[in-house]
């Protein structure tokens, strides 16, 4: 062990670089937290006097509020319909995730394992569809979803739009991963008399957990982070998603950075919790271990 260690390069330059990146990563987040707990609506951390000295200027960049207050959070729920907007976002995003992962994993499995007429065209069509500019899709999509199907300001309409937006990336991602899973497992299962569905759900999907995690996360985030389509399809105020609602606070003439920061923290927490929860599936060597064992 010690002999092996000596071959490796020393770790401290790596730590130095990582710490720098951690600082860059965290600063904007600490800034948001500072503004959220400032109790005010200004985007400055501290009000500078006209003849600001170095100490004042340092104070203005240290991400800690002058007066800690939770008033922004309280009035977000007391005075604004923010809770309803969060609920809307949660429903739409969860439905998108379930539907998206199911559709993408089945399609990706077929593209990875079977050779069938139309396979190549299907795969290419997923890739090509990623190049369709969103703006070009929005006008016709609006006509179909809202005018033809009558699904304006409804969960179903938005979930459908989000799911088909997420599918191409998910299919490609999962196909790439399925390709790396050796077929020996499935072949031996087939010999043991397992059905095709059993092989997929019992063997392949569990092995592909890291890819499923990335895919699910991606689907959820696509839905949770989306602003423009939500603003287009959700016309009624009680059907706004969190992004559309948050946009109210700093869009137009209102510059309520306090509400925005507090709302942003609340809107960002579920996605981060989910992310951390799925972290454990991103572990190494699942496939290798399974084949070796």
């Amino acid at each position, binding site marked *: 062990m010690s002999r092996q260690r000596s071959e490796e390069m020393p770790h401290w330059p790596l730590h130095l670089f990582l710490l720098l990146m951690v600082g860059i990563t965290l600063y904007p987040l600490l800034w948001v937290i500072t503004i959220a707990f400032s109790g005010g609506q200004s985007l400055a951390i501290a009000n500078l006097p006209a003849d600001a000295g170095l100490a004042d200027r340092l104070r203005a960049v240290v991400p800690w509020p002058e007066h800690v207050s939770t008033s922004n959070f309280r009035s977000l729920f007391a005075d604004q319909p923010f809770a309803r907007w969060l609920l809307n976002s949660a429903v739409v995003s969860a439905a998108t995730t379930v539907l998206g992962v199911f559709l993408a994993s089945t399609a990706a499995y077929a593209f990875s394992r079977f050779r069938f007429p139309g396979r190549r065209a299907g795969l290419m069509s997923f890739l090509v569809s990623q190049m369709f500019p969103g703006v*070009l899709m929005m006008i016709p999509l609006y006509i179909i979803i809202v005018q033809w199907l009558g699904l304006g300001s409804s969960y179903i309409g938005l979930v459908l739009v989000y799911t088909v937006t997420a599918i191409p990336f998910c299919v490609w991602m999962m196909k790439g991963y399925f390709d790396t899973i050796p077929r020996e497992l499935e072949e031996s299962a087939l010999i043991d008399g397992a059905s095709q569905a059993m092989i997929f759900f019992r063997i392949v999907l569990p092995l592909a957990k890291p890819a499923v995690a*990335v895919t699910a996360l991606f689907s959820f985030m696509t839905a949770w982070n989306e602003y423009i389509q939500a603003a287009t399809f959700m016309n009624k105020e009680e059907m706004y998603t969190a992004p559309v609602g948050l946009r109210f606070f700093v869009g137009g003439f209102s510059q309520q950075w306090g509400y925005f920061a507090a709302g942003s923290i609340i809107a960002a927490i579920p996605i981060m919790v989910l992310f951390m929860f799925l972290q454990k599936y991103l572990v*190494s060597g699942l496939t290798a271990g399974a084949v070796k064992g």
Partner: protein
Amino acid sequence: MAAPSHPPSHRRRFLAGLAVALLLGTGAGLALLTASRTADRQQLAAREAVVTLSALTELIERVEAPAAAPAGGLGDELAGLDAAPAEEAAPADGEEEGGMGLGDELAALDAGAEAPAAEPGAPTREAVARFAAEHPEVRSIRVVTFEGIRLEASTDSADTGEKAAPRRLDREEKDLYDQGQRLRAAVDENRETVAAGGSPVSDEISVQEQEDGGFVLGAPLEREGGVVGLVQIRTAPNPVVQAPTPPWLPALLAWLAPVAVLALLGLALGERRALLAGAALVLLLAGLAGYAVTAGGVRAAERRDTADRLAAHITAERETTAKLLAALGPADAKPLRPETWDRNSYRAPFGLVTAEGTLDAGKLGALVEADAGRLRRFVGVIALLAAILLAFVGFGGAATVGRNLVRYRVAYAYTVPAMVGMILLVFFPFFYGITLSFTNANIYNSNKPIVDLWVGVDNFIDILSDVAVVRSTPDGWVFNYNNFYWTLGFNVVWTITNVVIGVSLGLLLALILNTKGLAFRPLYRVVLILPWAVPSYISALVFQGMFHQQFGVVNQFRQIAGLDPVAWFDGPFTSFLAVLTTNGWLSFSFMMVVSLGALQSIPADLYEAAKVDGASRWQQFRSITLPSLKPALVPAVILSVIWTFNQFNVIFLVSGGQPAGATEILITQAYKLAFEQYRYGYAAAYSTVIFLILLAYGLFQNRASQATEAIGE
């Protein structure tokens, strides 16, 4: 190809082909009949409502016109305005009032000596009230005049008591006024277009169907050639009557008879393929033709029936309105013109019903003939499709496809759900968007049929032919930031810098985090994933705040270092730096996660084996790490390029294209064209160009990388 034990039966195949093809043909015919029946009903309801509205409009125009003159104060006002004759083709400058020439006015004064009311608008109110009393199917009537923004008359239940007409319109009722002004603009525009030899383009009567089946209709109120107001009626809810199903017996017969005949013929013809094909084709065409004749007869009878009902409605309206006019209007009132009441949205009479309320046989004949022509074209297309289907099934194509479907049923079952969604909600809208790019659709005309808006490739020529990115002025070079090629150039620079930064930083961090035995590894990973976990629109807005010139922390840092604060969004380069920083911050995590996932799926024993063989770290990286990363990294990089190219949120929310559109990328530019300037057609063309650029890149990328191989195998 065929299974040796069981040769395919041509007879059976052609019989099946004929049955399917005929089913398609007769089914489509039946569907067309049902659809045109439903459309007829809706059209009749709308046309009857327009007739009612037209009758009311004419009544108001008749009773009000002569009465306006004797009213003292207003008369003076009018006389002053008369200096500007408004009878010209385009009174578009807002002086719509005062349409009467002085001579006309005097004549009207003589004629209308017995004005029923001293107050202007009173005759209108009287006429509206009596008209409403005669029409229980009209829920409310509102009359707006532009002069003074007045609600002249109303029978709406909301307009009682405090809000009773006449009164000035409220702020909330601005859309009513705007609707009137839109119709006026349409009248003027159409008049100009027609004078220039064109055909009218904008609706002069607005018809909106409500969810309950009622209509809201608006028509311009004219006086002496100028539009002075709006007449709006709201009809009572009209329960949507289910159109009776068209006779299905002929369809069934047209389907069964040829099939039965072919079955009998098959006994005689045996397995001779050419003869079977010929017989099946003849029978198919005969069956379809027979059905078309029956359907044509049904259609013509329906057309006559609809026309009769319309004529009856017009007659009833004429009698009612004449009665009201006799009671309210001037004694020598000219007869009404009911033949103009049945008119299209450009207020051009259809001419189907004469002044006496009888049907114009010629017009009706032309309509029936047009129906027949449409039916013939439809049957022609359907027959062609059915024949193709017949050949497909008869000559064994269907059998091959069917065999494939059965043989690869597992694969298709896995892919079908995703593909159906993609086709309905991605590919179909995409092609619809492409179609829009050949039109001049905008927010005001997007409900019209595509063919009316068709402009060919004009939009594309507009976008691509303007190459004047830079022009020389005495003050130096001036860039046209809204030029397509500037935006494209900026977009390319933006994409390359971002992807290079994102991939190198992400890969570097992944390799470091994959180092065995590195302390605090999970902690670093959690923190470094955060930018990806934060919604991008939030990050963008946060960075926008941090780059604020006065209060932003970036400038505070600069001042600590003794530098001057920078107005980040006032210069193209500093603005670019701001958006680049933002996007760099939020994009490296994704690449890091993808690389890390791939690194961790590399079996450790590969490295162990390499070490045993004495491979150096660099050799291990080249021969094991990079090739193993490729399957995950190549699609991720391709997608990352496309995403960055279309990175809407960062540009739109951080710089907003400032300064003057210099940092606009193609997609934000297209968005602004569509949703800030409402030029849907032009924006669709712009988006189509973006798509073609990305497609070209995709094909190039696909060839350059080994992706093709990976798919093909």
